[in-house]
């Protein structure tokens, strides 16, 4: 059997190295497209061979690496990781297509960054060894940092540094948590191991309750900053806004925080000394993020910044859903990640196009773009609707499952989140109305509609938003399997 | 018989008595230095076909007394630019250096019943090292003299002294090492006694020559007296000294000469060793070794004085060249020769 997981991790990295050595834009983009398409094909193959009825890790690969420290090369995917890999694999070829005709400095590095990010992110999703997990986790930082600091907007350096320090500190704290877990387990069993499933299963045997809580909180902090959730979100609007369009899309693909929440945190949650406190923390952070992000989005003048804050708001549902601890809410939260990835990538692409054609992203300076750019307008309206949760589009399913599922356990927090729905609808519609409709602002000069490459790439993703809104089961099934598994574990522990 | 040797040992090993013996030796050496001065003047005169000192006493023998009186009654002048403390203490250091050398130096031996008792203030296991070390102190004394006087001639002389010293010290040390290897000891008495069948000058002639030349430089004898070459530097490092202060510097040089000659005798010329049949007779055993030893020392001194008039003075750079480029390799060669002989089992 071929090592398919290693391939989907390594192929983007190898193609990234290849892209670095190209001289022209043409060569670089062909390599990038080839790399992403190969990954997409492999992922699709993997998807069809994936058994969505079991919650176990599949396609496992295991090799010893540093036995004296218990480090292994262990890869595998389960129902939590599979949709996210699929998301990445689908979006990235279209992202390359989207940037097909752009002119920018050093395109070889640009495409190398895209490919490296893809490899690193998929690496995080497939790693079943904490060492490997951490390496890929850190590796995602590097290309994104370059993405912002080379091709970013006017405040790129500040944004890049802010992003780097925030997330790096968070990942170091996470590393502390990993160490704690690692040595606690080493002390108990006498053999070192960094294997994620093994360590998670040994977490419950740690005797000291305080140690358990410390480990849990350290890991939680690392993931929460990455999601990002209030109050650690402040790197995110800057980085999203300053990054180039492709960079923003890559940030949206960076679902590793939420993934960690489901993969690592939830199985450990029932064994902490005070699970209820942890749930409360997560729920509070999630619901406040939803509301707070929505309010801030409402007050933004910059279209891209508004989208960035809306992302904070939407990712709040992930944290909240994870805290809901019902199969419905957990799987809803997982689905929210998936759907959010699709929706947001199109939204950021739209922002990028508007900026490129009109030269501004300030909402008040725009107006009536729909007349000049009808194709863009159609796609934009559709994704904005998906984002605000219109039934029939993928965002609706995710948010409804989260809210409905969590209500039983966390009614007050859900009420906070629900109150945000109105605001969400308000800023989406208001922005759409001011930017796209109404009288055309003549100061913008002549604008042309999106070209074929952009239409195809944005259109396909938008259609996927619609498809998964109508028929979520291709991914929701495997999510449900896993969330059932998690929740049954909770139930067994009486949480 | 046992009682007697016990008594002798009791006397010999009493440190206080030894100290007194040392003081006697000190006096004797002082006297010897005086004689050496007179000797040198007369001999130099002979070489140059003059009479030398003749007026005071028979053949000028009392000239020494006259000189001593003169030194004692001259005014003691300390130049106003001088560093007074150093100026005053430098002669003390010089005298200290030669006297401390003298402490460990054997002045012969008394042989009773085949048992030899060395005439020396003290005996040490490492006396040769000690003597060399004490001898080196005098360099500092000389520099103190020159530096404190604040006179350009003095300082120049002292610097030349340094330059010379750093040349000859190394070959000198290597020659001593060669001798010590052959004797298997660093005790000068044992080294002297190890030469009882064969003098080391026969075993290592090269070493003896190198040692002798280096020693000449050590003592500042012509042709190596660049530090006080009268023609250019007045009196060299001693220029500003008067009265008995000058006398001490002067005496230090002559005592150094005597002690150096003794070293030559002890290390290479067989010391006080005599054939056993001579020393078996008690009275001869008491007198002969010491007498024989002192005679050899006198001959060496004579030889050194004669050289003075046979060889012109080297320039300072020539001295340095000589010691680094000729004496040092030769001394190493000698060391190799000694090691080779030892490995072949010759001694």
């Amino acid at each position: 059997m071929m090592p398919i997981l290693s391939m989907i991790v390594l192929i983007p990295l190898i193609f990234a190295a290849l892209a670095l050595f190209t001289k022209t834009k043409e060569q670089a983009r062909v390599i990038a497209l080839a790399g992403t398409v190969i990954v997409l094909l492999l992922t699709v193959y993997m998807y069809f061979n994936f058994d969505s009825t079991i919650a176990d890790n599949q396609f496992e690969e295991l090799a010893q690496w540093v036995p004296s420290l218990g480090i292994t090369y262990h890869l595998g995917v389960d129902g939590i990781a599979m949709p996210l890999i699929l998301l990445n694999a689908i979006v990235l070829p279209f992202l390359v297509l989207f940037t097909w005709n752009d002119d920018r400095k050093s395109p070889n590095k640009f495409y190398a960054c895209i490919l490296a990010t893809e490899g690193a992110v998929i690496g995080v999703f497939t790693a079943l060894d904490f060492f490997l997990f951490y390496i890929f986790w850190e590796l995602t930082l590097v290309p994104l940092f370059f993405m912002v600091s080379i091709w970013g907007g006017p405040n790129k350096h500040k944004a890049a540094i802010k992003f780097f320090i925030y997330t790096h500190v968070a990942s170091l704290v996470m590393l502390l948590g990993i160490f704690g877990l690692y040595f606690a387990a080493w002390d108990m069993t006498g053999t070192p191991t960094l294997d994620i499933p093994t360590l998670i299963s040994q977490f419950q045997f740690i005797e000291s309750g305080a140690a358990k809580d410390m480990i849990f909180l350290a890991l939680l902090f690392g993931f929460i900053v990455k999601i990002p959730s209030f109050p650690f979100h402040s790197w995110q609007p800057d980085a999203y806004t300053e990054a180039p369009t492709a960079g923003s899309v890559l940030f949206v693909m960076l679902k590793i925080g939420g993934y960690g929440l489901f993969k690592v945190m939830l199985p450990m949650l029932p064994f902490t000394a005070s699970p209820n406190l942890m749930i409360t923390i997560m729920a509070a952070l999630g619901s406040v993020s939803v509301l707070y992000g929505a309010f801030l989005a409402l007050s933004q003048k910059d279209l891209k910044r508004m989208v960035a804050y809306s992302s904070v708001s939407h990712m709040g549902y992930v944290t909240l859903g994870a805290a809901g601890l019902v199969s419905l809410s957990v799987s809803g939260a997982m689905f929210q990640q998936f759907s959010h990835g699709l929706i947001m990538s199109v939204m950021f692409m739209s922002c990028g196009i508007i900026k490129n054609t009109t030269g501004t992203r300030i909402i008040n300076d725009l107006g009536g773009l729909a007349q000049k750019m009808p194709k863009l307008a159609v796609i934009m309206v559709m994704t904005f609707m998906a984002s605000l949760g219109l039934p029939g589009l993928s965002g609706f399913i995710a948010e409804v499952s989260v809210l409905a599922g969590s209500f039983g356990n966390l009614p007050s927090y859900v009420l906070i989140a629900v109150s945000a729905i109105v605001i969400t609808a308000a800023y989406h519609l208001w922005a759409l109305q001011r930017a796209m409709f109404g009288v055309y602002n003549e100061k913008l000069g002549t604008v042309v509609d999106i070209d074929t490459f952009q239409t195809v790439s944005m259109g396909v993703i938008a259609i996927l938003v619609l498809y998964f809104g109508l028929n979520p089961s291709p991914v929701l099934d495997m999510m449900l399997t896993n969330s059932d598994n998690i929740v049954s574990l909770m139930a067994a522990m009486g949480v | 018989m046992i009682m007697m040797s016990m008594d002798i040992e009791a006397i010999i090993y009493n440190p206080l008595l030894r100290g007194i013996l040392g003081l006697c030796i000190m006096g004797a050496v002082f006297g010897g230095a005086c004689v050496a001065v007179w000797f040198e003047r007369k001999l130099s005169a002979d070489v140059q076909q003059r009479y030398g000192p003749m007026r005071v006493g028979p053949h000028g023998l009392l000239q020494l007394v006259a000189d001593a009186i003169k030194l004692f009654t001259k005014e003691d002048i300390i130049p106003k630019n001088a560093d007074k403390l150093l100026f005053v203490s430098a002669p003390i250091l010089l005298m200290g250096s030669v006297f401390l050398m003298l402490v460990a130096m054997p002045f012969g031996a008394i042989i009773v019943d085949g048992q030899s008792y060395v005439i020396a203030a003290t005996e040490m296991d490492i006396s040769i090292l000690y003597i060399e070390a004490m001898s080196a102190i005098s360099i500092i004394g000389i520099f103190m003299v020159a530096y404190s006087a604040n006179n350009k001639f003095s300082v120049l002389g002292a610097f030349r002294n340094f330059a010379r010293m750093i040349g000859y010290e190394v070959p000198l040390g290597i020659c001593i090492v060669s001798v010590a290897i052959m004797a298997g000891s660093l005790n000068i008495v044992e080294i002297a006694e190890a030469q009882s069948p064969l003098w080391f000058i026969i075993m290592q002639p090269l070493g003896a020559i190198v040692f002798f030349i280096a020693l000449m430089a050590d003592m500042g004898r012509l042709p190596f007296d660049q530090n006080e070459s009268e023609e250019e530097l007045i009196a060299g490092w001693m220029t500003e000294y008067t009265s008995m202060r000058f006398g001490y510097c002067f005496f230090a040089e002559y005592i150094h000469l005597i002690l150096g000659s003794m070293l030559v005798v002890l290390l290479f010329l067989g010391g006080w060793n005599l054939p056993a049949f001579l020393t078996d007779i008690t009275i001869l055993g008491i007198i002969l070794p010491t007498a024989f030893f002192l005679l050899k020392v006198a001959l060496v001194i004579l030889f050194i004085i004669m050289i003075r008039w046979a060889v012109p003075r080297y320039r300072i750079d020539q001295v340095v060249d000589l010691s680094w480029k000729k004496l040092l390799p030769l001394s190493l060669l000698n060391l190799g020769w000694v090691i080779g002989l030892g490995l072949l089992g010759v001694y």
Partner: protein
Amino acid sequence: MDMMLLAPEITMAVTGLAVLLIGLFLPTDSKKILGYLASLGVLVALGLTISSLGTEALLFYNTVSIDALSQFFKIVFLVVALLFSIAGIKYTEGHSHTEEFFTLGLFGTIGMMFVASANDLMVLFVAFELASLATYALAGFEKKNIKSLEAAMKYFIIGSLSAALMLLGISYVYGATGTTSIPEIAANSAVLVSSPIGLVSVVLLLAGFGFKIALVPFHMWAPDTYQGSPSVVSALLAAGSKKMGIVAALKVFVVALIALKADWQIAFAILAVITMTYGNVVALRQTSVKRMLAYSSLAQAGYITMAFVVLTPLALGGGIFYALSHGFMKAGAFIATAAVTYMVLSENKDSADPDHIENFRGLGKRMPITALCMTIFVFALAGIPLTAGFMSKFVLFSSTIEAGFVWLAVIAILNSAISLGYYAKIVKYMYFLPTDGEKISEPFPYTIALIIAAIGVLAIGFWSQPFVHWAMEAASVLLTGGM
């Protein structure tokens, strides 16, 4: 006594003397061969050391011990010496004192190697001084460059002070225990514990080794010396000489004076924290790359010092392993600055600050291989995964947590986060800032040295199992009290 076990040292000595002698009879323009000869000698010595791995022996009346620890560090030193001599080929090009450069480097390495295998304080001290003396002279190798001379002078003064302090400390240890043999001191250390002389000697030895390792507050010389010395020499100093201080301190404190643990453990903890924090914070605002690397070297020494605090097998192994990786990373980084200096000086002979960070502008375009290797080194120093730096930090920091010194680990981890600030600055200058400089051909020996170091950094980072295992074995030698 099997002299074959000393074959690496003998090879080094013979090579050193041969280089010196041959160099004397060669005209200046054909002295290039000396560098190749020296590199060959080091390579042979390295091969001999690797081939003798796993043997254990006591030589010279138990004063020299060959064991896992000594062989580990010998290989560290030989690797650094190899990089030094390869890079030196280019550095000494056209220099009339080529033979001194290599001979001093080789002799310094012999000193370091004997420190690694010392089983007696006498051998340790003599070898320590041999290495120090050679490096004093190397630091002042550019006799016409006031910076180099100043570096040498400062290094010399502080180095001699440290030697004096160390010797006094050793004399007290000897006085109390009546022996200078390291295992015997450990056996007799009850005397030291019960008398104030133990504390005095710990303080003196701590200061003595602290100067060499450049722990704050004994670090004053390090930035100046690393900045002023020729970069290739800085590589030897930071990567070799500093490790020598560490292995000496390991032998003296962890083996000989383990009974006084209570006295020095907390001191090391404080020194480690101050050193890493000071080094990283001050490095942030440096404009000279060499000085920045010097401060980063302080910080790294601070990390390694944590091993003395934790004292578990894992931590000591981590510290030793860190020493290996740091050898590759720091030597590589300094050689990269040497290449940049060469570039700057070949364009403008009178450049006052060839190591200024402005000269790194656009290095990615001007010297792509150098820039790439430098990137690998600084990322490794910062602890980016898959490099030697990450792996060693991983082992060391994790062992710190394991032993319960969570506060120490947290400080260290925060520090390594800070350090990213200045490492990233170098990368930024190399790749993201525009330059009008031309692409130049990269000097071959520097490139070879850089590539070797980079491969080392990546290999240790990726294929760490044998190295970690080996470092653990070396650490176990320490904990069983030598032989």
